[in-house]
């Protein structure tokens, strides 16, 4: 959901909404769509949304990362170009959700309004709301260099490209609401799902470089498989990860594992109440 900027008109457009600025559509407009699938990388979304035979791209800016009022991941970008030989500008904002995304796509034909459109798309994107609440969330971390990942629902399973000859793997589960799942429950599950495993002491403290702290449990399976389970925490979520290898001290893979754990970032926080971020937004629309 986005707001209507003061003085702008709202028109239904397909399954979305078109916002028309004062002065009419000859100056441009901003289209909003939500629950768009498939979710795709920003580069693919840019290609999809800017594909327009009439708009000649002159310069593509850099993506600016944002988090929305609700703590959802988002990004905005500005594209300069021409339309029928006249200067024109596209602005795209996307809000990445669990299985879909929302897009805020601006088209400005008035060079005097380029900066204003860019700011408006940015603010609408940052203020976009979906009311998805506290839930299982993907979280950010750095990919283990040179490995590839499979998506397993919300989770990611990372393998070296020469797996299974190289027998290490890293599983990154979704962050889970701490009110419903505790770190101790996850460690207990790790112990009981491998009853033959030898546990190397109690979980020991570990930290990410982004302010999350937690513990690491090290298990050694009877077949010689090493297993490390880390659960990081903040006041809202637990962030579980697992490393498995036939050689628990395999230097390079263990170093990658450490790097992944250290790189874990917390799920972005909700930014206070949902009072509109943009003061010019006078009411909300779906």
């Amino acid at each position, binding site marked *: 959901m986005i707001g209507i900027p003061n003085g702008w008109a709202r028109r239904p457009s397909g399954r979305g909404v078109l916002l028309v600025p004062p002065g009419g559509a000859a100056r441009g407009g901003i289209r909003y769509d939500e629950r768009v699938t498939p*979710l795709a*990388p920003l580069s693919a979304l840019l290609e999809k949304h800017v594909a327009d035979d009439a708009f000649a791209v002159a310069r593509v800016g850099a993506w600016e990362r944002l988090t929305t009022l609700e703590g959802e*991941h988002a990004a905005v970008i500005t594209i300069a170009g021409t339309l029928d030989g006249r200067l024109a500008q596209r602005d795209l904002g996307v809000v*990445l959700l669990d299985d879909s995304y929302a897009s805020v796509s601006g088209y400005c034909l008035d060079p005097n309004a380029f900066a204003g459109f860019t700011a408006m798309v940015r603010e609408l994107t940052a203020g976009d709301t979906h009311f998805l609440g506290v839930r299982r969330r993907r979280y950010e*971390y750095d*990919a283990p260099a040179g490995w*590839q990942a*499979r*998506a397993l629902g919300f989770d990611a399973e990372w393998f070296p490209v020469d797996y299974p000859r190289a027998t290490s793997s890293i599983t990154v589960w979704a962050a889970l609401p701490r009110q419903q799942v505790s770190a101790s429950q996850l460690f207990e599950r790790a112990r009981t799902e491998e009853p033959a495993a030898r546990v190397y002491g109690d979980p020991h403290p570990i930290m990410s470089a982004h302010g999350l702290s937690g513990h690491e449990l090290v298990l050694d399976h009877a077949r010689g498989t090493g297993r490390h389970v880390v659960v990081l925490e903040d006041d809202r979520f637990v962030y579980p990860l697992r490393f498995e290898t036939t050689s628990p001290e395999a230097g390079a893979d263990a170093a990658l594992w450490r790097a992944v754990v250290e790189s874990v970032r917390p799920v972005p926080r909700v930014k206070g109440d949902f009072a509109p971020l943009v003061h010019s937004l006078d009411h909300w629309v779906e």
Partner: protein
Amino acid sequence: MRVHLMPYTNPRFTIVTSELEPVPLVHTDEWIRRRLGADGFTSSGIHALTTACGWPVVVAHGRLGGVPTLRAYYQFLDLGALAEARADDAGALALAWDVLATARPDYTGEHAALVQLFA
């Protein structure tokens, strides 16, 4: 998701591969044999081998439309893929196997992590 093979330029054979697909949990061997035998392909022998990386692969040699053909069905955990090499002669098929043996899964296109979505 697809099969990644070592690049090759040998004109004596051609290789095509399928997309990765789920492999059923039950009656897996029968299912693989059916995949290998699709389109009327008859083989003179089926062998269970492993790739250079250690992935299990079932290989069948035979002819399809009179052309020497080698089919391989890979199992990448719960996913599988069929590869077919065709050549003018059996010697070229042996060279094709050198390429087929380099197979590994390529998960390009999977969006498993936020870092991939921000790419």
